[in-house]
């Protein structure tokens, strides 16, 4: 368990679990050929690792429940602020509270799911510094799967769970005619939004290959981005809205598709096609993040251990 030794100096922390044998099963030892096979292999590696960390966390049930509760409270604060703001006004940037609930619910759900699935990747810089990334690189599983699943914790379900409650409330409070295209669009935006935030987590963490201490930088785009998307685009300067449409593709997470669902005018006056383009933006984000990750891993020279 060299990894734990490196992480903690000479003492092995007793509460941490030992590696399960499952990761070393012969089936996963060989790197498969073929694109689809490789993808399956990567997902399976992620799943095995995540299952191990879940089992470890469940050994301390009380602590887990407490932390899940605290997590739900922390992530609810943002919406509490919105509710408090609406004690003093009935519209913000021309949008009502249920409409903000829809913005909040979708944005927080997408961020929360992305954080649950790949959020651990943001500790990459620490792993590089401690030399534990090297251990992952020699294991017979894709490094990205391992980094994303390391310290996986269901505690992070707190944010999506709480976001779902807000989302359901806003859907019931809104007077929207839910035709099939709008339902489909809502489902598509939740998935695309999760993928976009996931790509931001991975792409942002990749910077740490070159700039090890830059962990907090990506918070601007992930947590900062989600905060931005809690509020309607009409609140912000047009330059900022354009920046998160054509630069970092945050606007595709919920702003653009929700303009269609809620029947609001686009402050930038973009063609309507943009409101349906979230899956495309998600695919592009994944491509960019994957290329960045590959470049980063190639540039990595090891910790010398």
């Amino acid at each position: 368990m060299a990894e734990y030794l490196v992480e903690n100096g000479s003492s092995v922390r007793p509460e941490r679990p030992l590696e399960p044998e499952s990761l070393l099963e012969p089936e996963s030892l060989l790197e498969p050929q073929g694109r689809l096979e490789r993808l399956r292999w990567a997902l399976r590696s992620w799943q095995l690792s995540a299952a191990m960390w879940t089992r470890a966390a469940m050994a301390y049930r009380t602590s887990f429940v407490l932390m899940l509760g605290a997590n739900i409270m922390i992530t609810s604060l943002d919406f509490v602020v919105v509710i408090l703001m609406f004690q003093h006004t009935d519209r913000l940037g021309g949008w009502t509270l249920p409409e903000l609930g829809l913005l909040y619910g979708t944005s927080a759900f997408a961020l929360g799911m992305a954080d649950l699935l790949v959020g651990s990747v943001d500790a990459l810089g620490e792993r590089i510094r401690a030399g534990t990334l090297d251990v992952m690189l020699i294991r017979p599983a894709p490094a990205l799967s391992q980094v994303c699943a390391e310290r996986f914790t269901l505690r992070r379900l707190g944010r999506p769970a709480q976001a779902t409650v807000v989302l359901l409330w806003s859907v019931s409070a809104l007077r929207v005619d839910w035709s099939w295209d709008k339902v489909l669009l809502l489902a598509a935006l939740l998935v695309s939004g999760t993928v976009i935030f996931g790509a931001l987590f991975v792409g942002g963490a990749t910077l740490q290959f070159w700039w090890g201490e830059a962990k907090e930088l990506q918070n601007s785009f992930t947590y900062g981005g989600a905060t931005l998307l809690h509020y309607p685009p009409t609140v912000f300067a047009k330059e900022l809205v354009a920046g998160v449409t054509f630069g970092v593709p945050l606007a595709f997470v919920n702003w653009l598709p929700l303009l269609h669902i809620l029947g609001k005018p686009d402050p930038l006056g973009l063609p309507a096609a943009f409101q349906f383009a979230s899956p495309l933006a998600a695919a592009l984000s994944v491509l960019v993040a994957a290329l960045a990750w590959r470049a980063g891993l190639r540039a990595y020279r090891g910790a010398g251990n």
Partner: protein
Amino acid sequence: MGSSARLYLAIARGSFRRYSTYRAATLAGVFTNTVFGFILAYTFLALWRARPGLGGYDTSQAVTYIWVSQSLLITVAVWGGGFQDDVQERFRTGDIAVDLYRPVDFLGWWLAADLGRAGFQLLARGLAPITAGAIAFHARMPHSPLTWPVFLLSVLLAVLVSFGLRYLVSLSGFWLHDSDGVRAVMLVVAMFFSGMLLPLGLFPDGLRQAAQVLPWAALIQVPTDIFLERSTGSALLAGLGFQLAWAVVLLALGRAAQLLATRKVVVQGG
């Protein structure tokens, strides 16, 4: 007396230098605070456009509120952290038992270290966001030059109150073995009741009055109101007195908890 003052000064200086080592991390943090400042300032602009003069803040004060609070966030450690991470690690390794028997006061040591940290972070993480706010949003700078030293005094008191709170949380580790859970709950309470998310004056009745007497108001709300020159004359003195009173109470509680904790360690055999 002179030699112990020199010792604490050396600890504070060492802590200041320790935090100044991580330049890239500091830069990344400043960038993030500034990004959040931009986002939140726009939301406040929208709220005050809908309700001019809300809570007694004019629009320029409301926007400045965001930038001052973003500048103070890390210095007064609303999220916790600073010495807490070090103490927590020492609980895990058991080194904490040794710490209590050092010929230096446990509370004094960590307080000096935390003041050094806060000094660095006020300079490194405080100046850039408020400057960005001044340029991009015409944040309202104090009109009277005297406000600056009073504001700095208030920030110092805020750090003392923050230290007092975090010290009690850390010491809970003596009884709970792990203060992670308490820390997580304190983070929620501190974010909400410090005025970091929304000025306390905008809270609904009941909650507002409660928030204004709880110690967390000393972290963000009081120093920010001083910066905005909303508190003048007797209100200013009341604000500073409020901070001082909580600092004294919390540090005394911390001292008492430390005595109890020390006895407990002896019982356990160290």
